[in-house]
């Protein structure tokens, strides 16, 4: 059997240096590829008394999507990159008591902040839906912000960027 003449087309690799600007730019892009842990989802847990009422509130009024609701005492919601876990205090892991028997409960002062495009319109819509505002007079430094409560009394801050607003560049 004669050799295949097309075998002479074999093209071995001859190393070629690309442009140095290209090489350096690509290296920087490779070094900027995120580690998985840096991409981890920002997650917050809120305690609620009535899971159905809480899920309805966050979905219908604040733009969250329901991801999971595997049982009557836990739900996982998303709003963009933010993951919100809702737990009913009790025996179920997540809402369970501390070793000394203390049960978690809704409320307090710490809160999630949700950015909105038009604060006045958001306040107006939420007020019409009967949402309880702790403070509906927009105030703040570099933002305009208001404070409201979910049906279990967890505070939520809404804000709209204003002059001087800062975020880390992506």
């Amino acid at each position: 059997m004669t050799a295949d003449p097309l075998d002479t087309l074999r093209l071995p690799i001859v190393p070629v240096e690309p442009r140095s600007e290209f090489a350096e730019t690509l290296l920087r892009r490779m070094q900027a590829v995120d580690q998985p842990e840096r991409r981890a989802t920002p997650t917050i847990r809120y305690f609620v008394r009535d899971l159905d009422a809480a899920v309805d509130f966050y979905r219908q009024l604040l733009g969250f999507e329901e991801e999971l609701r595997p049982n009557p005492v836990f739900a996982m919601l998303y709003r963009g990159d933010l993951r919100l876990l809702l737990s009913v205090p009790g025996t179920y892991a997540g809402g369970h008591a501390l070793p000394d028997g203390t049960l978690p409960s809704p409320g307090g002062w710490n809160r999630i902040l949700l950015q909105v495009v038009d604060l006045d319109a958001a306040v107006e819509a939420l007020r019409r839906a009967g949402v309880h505002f702790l403070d509906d007079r927009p105030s703040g430094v570099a933002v305009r912000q208001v404070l409201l409560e979910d049906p279990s009394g967890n505070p939520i801050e809404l804000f709209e960027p204003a002059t001087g607003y800062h975020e880390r560049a992506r």
Partner: protein
Amino acid sequence: MGGDVDHPPASDPVVAIYRVALPQVYGYLLPRCGSASLAEDLVSETFLAAVTASRQGSLTGVNVAWLVGVARHKLVDHWRRVEREQRSLAAAEPLVADVDDPWDEWLDTEAAYAALARLPIPQRAALALRYLDGLAVAAVAEHLGRSIPATETLLTRSRAALRRQYREEHPDDS
């Protein structure tokens, strides 16, 4: 901290062999792409895909040969993309007899590469993988997502097409 800010330690295995692998991967892609800008795009895709896989902790045995394999996949993906865009044109090409046409004269390889570059994408891809890269028919079939018999048919047809293209450019050779 006495860290050298410009050159952080290359903890990633792909970043660690970047300087050595880059001219090999570029040297593989450049003559097969026929364009430096396309070769640069595919080099970028290759290394970024590799480093992404590596950051997810799913890689063992990162070396130059493996990266060239990734580059080959990226090249085939590129051909597929172009082929999809050109499908309507390709469908309008006249049908040709798919007889194998044995080459008996000595091949002018530069002219053969030039003829190859003018073939429709599926034929060019099959011949490049089989002859430029020296892959076995089964490996060509895997890259192209075809069965082995379909790949053998495609190779036969592609050889005949290359032969015609080559003759058009070298009418005096045969």
